[in-house]
């Protein structure tokens, strides 16, 4: 579903009447996203908010609007129920932004997405964007710049820094996906490789990874198995991370040799990716190559 996104894709905001939902629905609309409706946080919500129709639940919203994508702006404890309802209602692409979703809830959401044949992005993500055209989530406009580099990231803020410095250097993005900082999630780095490979607007790929988990290693394996792969530039945060402790993101956890910076960098480099030690080096390498 990510490959077919456009400014016309009809998008729902689940939790539209909440503080976050309302603010970000307005930001997304201003940026160009086709917000067609939302769901209420409470039963006594108005039928419309800021000109956006409000529905009692996601099934009614999908039936009335034909929405294909949705963003869940609900707290972590409510994310699993919201996601399962969205997939049951026929949503094809769901972004869940909440940080702090229990890992075994994420396992259930992932299984529900897979059973429905739908795409899930999140949790703990600022979302995704077609820079200059639309965004689902809250990637900051100052970091978004249309261009020919596909960007994927576990971290929100680090990707903002990379996008912002790319823009300052005259570089931009074709597609930007925040996969999120949790250990169990929806779309993973390796699944995005074929999407970026097939996208004619993408010249190069930036991977913004971090310690913990095995996603970078999975991506390296997929890259090594891809003929004529586009150039990949990577930065892995957490070279100096403390073992046994989650570094801000629940997924940024190493123990023994598991999830370490050295392991990820070695696998990515062997697979042909260019690993950069600093944001500056990454942006310069992109500009040169």
């Amino acid at each position, binding site marked *: 579903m990510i490959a077919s996104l456009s400014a016309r894709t009809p998008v729902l905001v689940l939790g539209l009447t909440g503080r976050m939902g309302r603010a970000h629905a307005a930001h997304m609309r201003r940026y160009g996203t086709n917000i067609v409706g939302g769901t209420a946080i409470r039963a006594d919500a108005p039928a419309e908010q800021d000109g956006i129709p409000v529905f009692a639940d996601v099934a009614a919203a999908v039936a009335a609007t034909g929405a294909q994508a949705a963003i869940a702006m609900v707290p972590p404890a409510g994310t699993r129920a919201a996601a399962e309802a969205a997939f049951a209602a026929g949503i094809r692409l769901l972004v869940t932004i909440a940080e702090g979703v*229990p890992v075994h809830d994420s*396992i259930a959401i992932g299984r529900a997405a897979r059973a429905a044949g739908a795409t899930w992005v999140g949790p703990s993500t600022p979302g995704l964007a077609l820079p200059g055209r639309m965004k689902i989530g809250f990637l900051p406009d100052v970091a978004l710049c249309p261009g020919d580099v596909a960007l994927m990231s576990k*971290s*929100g*803020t680090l990707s903002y820094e990379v996008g912002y410095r790319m823009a300052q250097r005259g570089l931009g993005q074709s597609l930007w996906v925040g996969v999120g900082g949790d250990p169990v999630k929806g779309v993973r780095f390796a699944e995005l490789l074929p999407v970026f490979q097939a996208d004619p607007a993408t010249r190069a790929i930036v991977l913004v990874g971090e310690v913990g988990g095995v996603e970078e290693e999975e991506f390296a394996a997929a890259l090594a198995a891809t003929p004529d792969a586009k150039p990949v530039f990577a930065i892995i945060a957490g070279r100096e991370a403390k*073992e*046994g*402790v*989650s570094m801000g993101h629940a997924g940024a956890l190493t*123990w023994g040799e598991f999830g370490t910076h050295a392991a990820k960098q070695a696998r990515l480099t062997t697979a042909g990716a260019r690993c950069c030690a600093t944001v500056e080096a990454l942006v310069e390498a992109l500009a040169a190559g």
Partner: protein
Amino acid sequence: MLLVEADGKALLARHGIRVLPATLVRQEEGFRPEGPGPWVVKAQVPVGGRGKAGGIAFCRDAAAVTEALQRLLGGTLRGHPVTACLVEQAVAGAEEHYLSLLVDPASYGVRIAWTRAGGIEVEEAGELATRLAPPEEGAIQAAAEELLAEAPPRDRAALRDAVAGLARALLRDGLLLAEVNPLFLGPDGAVAGDAKVVLDLNLAETRTDLRDLVLARPEAYPDAVRKLEEGFDYVELDPEGELGLVTTGAGLSMVVVDEMQAAGLKPLNFCDLRTGQLRGDPARLVRVLGWIAERRRVRVVLVNIFAGITDLGEFGRLLSDALDRTGLRLPVVARLVGNGAAAGRAELERRHPEIAVVDSLPEALARIAALRAP
């Protein structure tokens, strides 16, 4: 988060995994091990590969136990201070197996790994025979049967029980990892010689028993306890660090630490402030500045905020309030980017003109290097 062995074993024991009798020792003085020995003395720190790092001592007699405790307690192991050791009877004549259940993110299931050749080397062996199962106790048992077909028939019943215990622990306590290595297999069945358990802190809100387990041991989990009590992440990396960080966002904060280290600067801490949760209150900033000021070696404070949503105008006001309230005497370098950066900068320049406000990270690094030069 990774639990120390003693807590991991206590958690697994609640689900039926047998563990050895052991004593948790916080100070060597006056401690005499029970039983005939020999004993094993193990530093209680949340890291892997403790054996290779010198954190596990095999002791033939009580004098050796005393010596090991003296050596380990009060020291550090892979960045963690050793505040307690577990003293356990050594097991003789048993086979050392390896058994683990790990959440498998790619399949949304559980990966079961088992080998008869457990012990210290398995951690480096890398590729183990594994099976995947959906996250249900029955399915995990069924998948484990395929692996256990390779086990000696006399051990199978004990291994099945161990799989069942780990499955209950993983699924009912919402763990990411439940690993036992070595799992001693002898005539009396299976006994855990170690436990590596990764807890999901996201469950702490609803599972007070798991939350209490962490809060009960602040000396072993200072960073996790701080996160539970304060609601954000602050990890002390080096108590002798010279650079205090007031940063937000996990990935960017990690990279700031990495780039500082690479530039020869010594960061004190990692910090993911979550500025979106400040809600007009400087309390969180006051806390962080207080922790930084407590460390004597700190020479400079770096504030680096990339605001996607946060209003930096308000952040500038909150930071100024926090600096007023704490009376911080250290030089501050601040970089604000994003939503309302100009207003934030103006606020800082008006109320704290002594702060060096810069535009980029490389510029911040250069300023810091200049400020800490003698």
